[in-house]
């Protein structure tokens, strides 16, 4: 019973924290993409090189 409690804690914490961290990363990626949008110049500067 004690082990089952440990397993459930691990499951809830493990899945919960993994899920929330990945949600946070989604928000960070969206924010970064808004702050630094892709500009066509990047491609042209690549080509000129």
């Amino acid at each position, binding site marked *: 019973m004690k082990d089952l409690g440990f*397993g459930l804690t691990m499951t809830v914490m493990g*899945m919960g924290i993994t899920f929330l*961290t990945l949600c*946070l*990363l989604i928000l960070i*990626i969206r924010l*970064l*993409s808004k702050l630094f949008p*892709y500009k066509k110049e990047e*491609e042209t500067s690549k080509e000129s090189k």
Partner: protein
Amino acid sequence: MDVFISALESLGQGFTNLSWQAALMMLIGCVLLYLAIAKKIEPLLLVPIGFGIILGNLPLAGLSAHDEGGIINLLYQGGILTEIFPCLLFLGLGAMIDFGPMLGNPVVLIFGAAGQFGIFLVLLLALAFGLPRNEAVSIAVIGACDGPTAIYVTTKFARDLLPAVSIAAYSYMSLVPIIQPPIMRVMTTKKERATLMPTGEKKISKTVKILFPIVTGIVTILIAPMGAPLMGMLMLGNLLKESGVVSRLVDVSQNTLANLVTLFLGLCIGASMLGGDFLQVKTIIIFVLGALAISLDTVAGVLLGKLMRVITHGKINPLLGAAGTSAFPMSARVVQKEGQRANPRSFLLYHAIGANTGGQIGSVMAAAVMLAIMSNIA
């Protein structure tokens, strides 16, 4: 005459000390070599593992991972027990991974969480079977579908299980194209599998690609410091690649370092598989639970995919959920193949690679949480 007889006796000591378990293990080593060389199944890993098994089980050779002072023992002590090899492998992996598809469609990251569900279900199952906590955690982490992570966690908590866990983790990673498709087909209708998704690659600015490993490294390590060695190395490798200014370091990380570590890791794992320790019922339990963990990862991923399809009004193909495991890039390729089988116009690879890289991050996070909880209990 006496000298001749004693010379013969000492020469034959290898044969007289050969146990049936060691002979059987050497046979297993030969089978792995056959699979690697003749069938081309994961040769980079199976050749050193197969030959490592043979060397490690040769009596009196002093070449097992546990023979104090032997060359393989020194590699084992220095690379595996110190956890350096898995971390260095993550550095190489980071230098190989392109997070571009994930950055272009970040919502697929969520599949990286569902892809870890099997770990925890198998943990509960292993505990229900009465396995000790440290062993249950080490077996469950096979579900991360990620060899280095499995080795890292097992080295910390159940070193005795390291050979079986690492072999199971790497075997199932290569068996993903066999394990996943039937589950994907059973869990979805043909209409769902045929769902089309946008095919165009979304352009990402170089600044975002450079900032992503830095920010992700900081955020994830602050949340779960126990995963820092793995996450730190993964993100460092990716930063080297995206920075565009250290091509020599990228080349070394992607090729020389990753290949060298794979060679030593395989050799050490093989040489640690000694007959007496490996040929046990527990090894079979580890393999069965490991297969179950990866299957349950796929089930959970596809179920989340179905839910996302409903929420987005049919804009997400549920097969993407199966790519949320950390088996990179095998899972993504399986998703692409199954999607095209249902609809030849379907092209899911770009999105599946995104979900697959999310699985890499998800597996390290899940392992970090397990390590944190276990460390607090210990």
